[in-house]
């Protein structure tokens, strides 16, 4: 018989936990949900746009009644649980319903704090928490004129903006002299206040509310100094308090909130709690993103996996007032010894401040231009060292050449503007999918719209749209990004486990790291295969079935299912008999098209899969090996003519290119990897947009790394300058090996260099000679295994099943 799970609280945290649980194990529990409100689960953070008339209640429903039915979840609405009997393990509701439980989940959220002043219980005094409050406000706006919002924080300002949009005269009363003091510093708060005043809001600062006046219904607000302000409606938005009454009555240990450990368990091991009602490591959260992290962890334990831990969240805030861009995160008030970076452009209404400690971002406040909020937030949470780019960091990620294509001001784009150029997805499609389908994560948007699911260059734009559309609910940078949906471990966790544990085969990775799926998926299997191969080149047996088809068939699959063949031409040099051999092969196998590639070699298109091995046999006989044009591997070394022919050449760039290609060919990499050698600073081989580029100068060789000429053009960083060809080879091998061992699978050198910082790489490859030599040595060991030509092996009959079809007997 199934176990019974009862959820008290039909809100975002509780339902998110159920969704996560159903994803992992839909069969484990019979589930009942109690909700005090008469509605299915809706997106509470979108109440502000509903109040402002920009959305309807239907727009913000997250789980429709059908959803509960489809998942066999019993939903009891409009009925509060009044008693938890922890001995009998059952709950009882106001209407007398009783449900037994094996596991109980409390997600009762929070209540608005009503200041205990005389008259606070009069009609027309409300909080801003649920649909009923919104209904009250909308009704008041129809019949009366004056509204007073007490509290100039996030919620108060959103309520005030909404009431004003509904035609009321609104005054915001704030106890302090600066708005949103928990999210903003004074300069940003001043900009915000000016902008809101311009829109028609009134402010009464440093005012202490003393009483609510009126007969039965509110008529005015009285302040400590005796002054009064007429009011038909008073919204108290001075904070929230975790709703712990029920838990407290039931003897579950509470302080400010219900006390939970890192597994979201309360002091009663049968009882879990998530959301605004809990207190974790002494913090009660009032924003949505942390709740989602808690939900993931709690679901993991309810599903009896027992591995996830919640370790607290760093939160960020955005104000959902249309037309006002505001973002804040972390410790934005500088402490003793902190540095601040500030950009102020008063006439454009832009203010950006970053608080820096030891070259790491500790806090951020952005006003007017919040495009880079998610980026700063990610740097903050990952503790990235910003020393390498702090001089330009305030200009945004775009300034690093990493913002993707197109206009970065995504919010100003029209609905018909194309965001994802690969899949032809417009801004309107994405925003519609996010709001209609209740999407919260990049993965969900990718699955539903295909936007950002191909080349990924629009990821930043899609993330910005998500952040804007769902507001605080968007969890921009989970503190730990899982490698894929099959695991909670990050790329770094997995790499570390494989290298240090050590783990040397894929089944053991699944077992020891508690993979949730039997065989992984198309995302993690190639990654694991690579990590195992990179860590244990001499021991791990490559798993063909975990490779993407291109690397399994050693050719690029084309849209019609045929393949392309690119023989390697070392340094781009080629001899007449080699060209003849290629021409003969094309005639023999009727290759429909040949093309000279940008990598200085020749691509043969439209080859049938079964023709590949015999074709490779002919190419092999002519001395060719695979060009790995299909792989996450070393691709080409582009060269210029060099000093043999060119009157400007300073070194033998072609010869050096050939040597580099002989050193590196065949190497599997986290992503594709390109080299180039230019014979002089004119740089005809375009070495400064390659993963590893050499620019020859009269006195030696400049080594450049981390360039990219593809999705996001990025110019290389100068690694160092060396004097001999032998040094070029050694530094190249060491850099390559460091990238091979530490980068995430499918991370090019450009984002890798930006993520770990050039100084880290310089330290290992340039400054520490011993480490350089060790890296170079390890690269050569791995090359012993890699430089067995895969084409020749298959031409001689290897992996024959891959290339032959079956006949019906």
């Amino acid at each position: 018989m199934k176990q019974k799970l009862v959820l008290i609280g039909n809100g975002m945290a509780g339902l998110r936990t159920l969704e996560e649980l159903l994803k992992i194990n839909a069969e484990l529990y019979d589930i009942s949900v109690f909700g005090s409100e008469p509605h299915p689960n809706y997106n509470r953070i979108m109440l502000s746009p509903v109040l402002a008339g920009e959305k309807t209640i239907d727009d913000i429903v997250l789980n429709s009644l059908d959803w509960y039915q489809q998942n066999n979840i019993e939903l009891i609405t409009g009925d509060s649980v009044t008693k938890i009997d922890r001995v009998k393990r059952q709950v009882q509701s106001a209407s007398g319903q009783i449900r037994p439980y094996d596991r109980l989940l409390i997600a009762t959220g929070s209540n608005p704090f009503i200041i205990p002043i005389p008259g606070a219980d009069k009609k027309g005094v409300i909080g801003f928490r649920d649909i009923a409050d919104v209904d009250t406000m909308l009704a008041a706006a129809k019949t009366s004129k004056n509204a007073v919002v007490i509290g100039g924080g996030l919620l108060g300002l959103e309520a005030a903006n909404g009431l004003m949009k509904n035609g009321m005269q609104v005054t915001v009363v704030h106890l302090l002299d600066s708005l949103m003091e928990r999210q903003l510093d004074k300069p940003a708060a001043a900009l915000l206040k000016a902008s809101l005043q311009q829109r028609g809001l009134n402010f009464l600062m440093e005012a202490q509310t003393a009483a609510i006046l009126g007969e039965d219904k509110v008529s005015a607000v009285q302040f400590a100094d005796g002054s009064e302000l007429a009011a038909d409606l008073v919204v108290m938005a001075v904070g929230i308090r975790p709703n712990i009454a029920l838990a407290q009555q039931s003897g579950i240990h509470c302080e400010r909130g219900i006390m939970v450990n890192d597994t979201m368990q309360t002091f009663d091991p049968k009882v879990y709690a998530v959301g605004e009602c809990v207190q974790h490591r002494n913090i009660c959260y009032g924003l949505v993103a942390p709740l989602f992290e808690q939900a993931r962890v709690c679901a993991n334990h309810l599903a009896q996996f027992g591995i996830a831990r919640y370790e607290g969240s760093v939160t960020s805030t955005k104000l959902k007032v249309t037309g006002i861009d505001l973002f804040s995160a972390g410790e934005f008030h500088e402490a003793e010894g902190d540095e601040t970076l500030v950009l102020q452009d008063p006439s454009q209404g832009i203010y950006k401040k970053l608080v820096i400690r030891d070259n790491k971002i500790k806090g951020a406040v952005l006003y007017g231009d919040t495009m880079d909020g998610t980026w700063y937030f990610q740097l903050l949470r990952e503790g990235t060292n910003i020393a390498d780019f702090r001089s330009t960091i305030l200009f945004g990620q775009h300034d690093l050449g990493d913002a993707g294509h197109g206009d970065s001001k995504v919010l100003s784009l029209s609905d018909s503007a194309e965001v994802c150029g690969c899949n032809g997805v417009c801004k309107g499609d994405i925003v519609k999918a996010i709001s209609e389908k209740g999407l919260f994560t990049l993965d969900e948007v990718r699955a539903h719209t295909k936007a950002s699911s191909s080349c990924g260059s629009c990821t930043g734009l899609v993330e910005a749209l998500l952040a804007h559309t769902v507001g605080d609910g968007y969890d921009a940078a989970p503190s730990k990004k899982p490698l894929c949906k099959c695991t909670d471990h990050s790329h770094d966790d997995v790499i570390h486990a494989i290298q240090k544990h050590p783990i040397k085969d894929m089944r053991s990775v699944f077992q020891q790291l508690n993979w949730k799926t039997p065989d992984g998926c198309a995302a993690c299997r190639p990654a694991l295969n690579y990590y195992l191969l990179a860590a244990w080149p001499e021991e791990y047996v490559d798993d063909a079935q975990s490779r993407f088809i291109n690397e399994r068939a050693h050719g690029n699959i084309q849209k019609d299912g045929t393949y392309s063949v690119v023989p390697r031409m070392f340094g781009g040099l080629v001899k007449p008999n080699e060209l003849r051999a290629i021409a003969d092969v094309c005639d023999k196998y009727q290759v429909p098209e040949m093309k000279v590639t940008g990598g200085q070699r020749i691509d043969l298109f439209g080859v049938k899969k079964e023709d590949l091995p015999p074709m490779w046999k002919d190419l092999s006989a002519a001395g060719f090996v695979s060009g790995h044009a299909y792989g996450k591997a070393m691709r080409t070394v582009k060269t210029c003519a060099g000093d043999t022919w060119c009157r400007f050449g300073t070194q033998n760039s072609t010869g050096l290119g050939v040597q580099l290609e002989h050193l590196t060919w065949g190497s599997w990499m986290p992503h594709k990897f390109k080299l180039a050698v230019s014979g002089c600073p004119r740089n005809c081989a375009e070495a400064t947009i390659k993963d590893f580029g050499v620019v020859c100068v009269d006195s030696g060789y400049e080594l450049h790394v981390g360039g990219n000429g593809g999705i996001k053009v990025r110019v290389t960083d100068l690694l160092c300058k060396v004097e001999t060809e032998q040094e070029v080879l050694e530094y190249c091998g060491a850099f390559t090996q460091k990238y091979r061992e530490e980068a995430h699978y499918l991370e090019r050198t450009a984002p890798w260099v930006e993520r770990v910082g050039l100084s880290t790489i310089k330290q290992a490859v340039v400054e520490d000679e011993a480490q350089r030599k060790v890296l170079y040595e390890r690269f050569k060991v791995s090359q012993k295994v890699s430089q067995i030509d895969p084409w020749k092996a298959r031409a001689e009959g290897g992996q024959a099943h891959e290339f032959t079809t079956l006949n019906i007997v």
Partner: protein
Amino acid sequence: MSNWKLVTTLTDIPQLGSRVIKTATMNIAIFRNSEDRIFAMKDECPHKKGPLSQGIVHGTSVTCPLHNWRIDLASGEALGPDQGCTNTFPVKIENGQVFVQL
């Protein structure tokens, strides 16, 4: 009428891999998963006709190599938010020999 056709042996299909059967009218992909279950379906993704036989097999699904649609091996239905379906064929294993009903 029995139209079960012998196509190969279980061991000739790699685990978590596939083979392709060429027929007069279409290519049929035959898959073997990690539990040695066998599945057969038209070798054509419902999305843009990508050869599913060339995809990565995991659990009871295959991911199309062209645009990463996931197709359920048993039903031929696209999984997740994608919608579409490809034809499947009954299969059986007898004494290590694999038969497909055409």
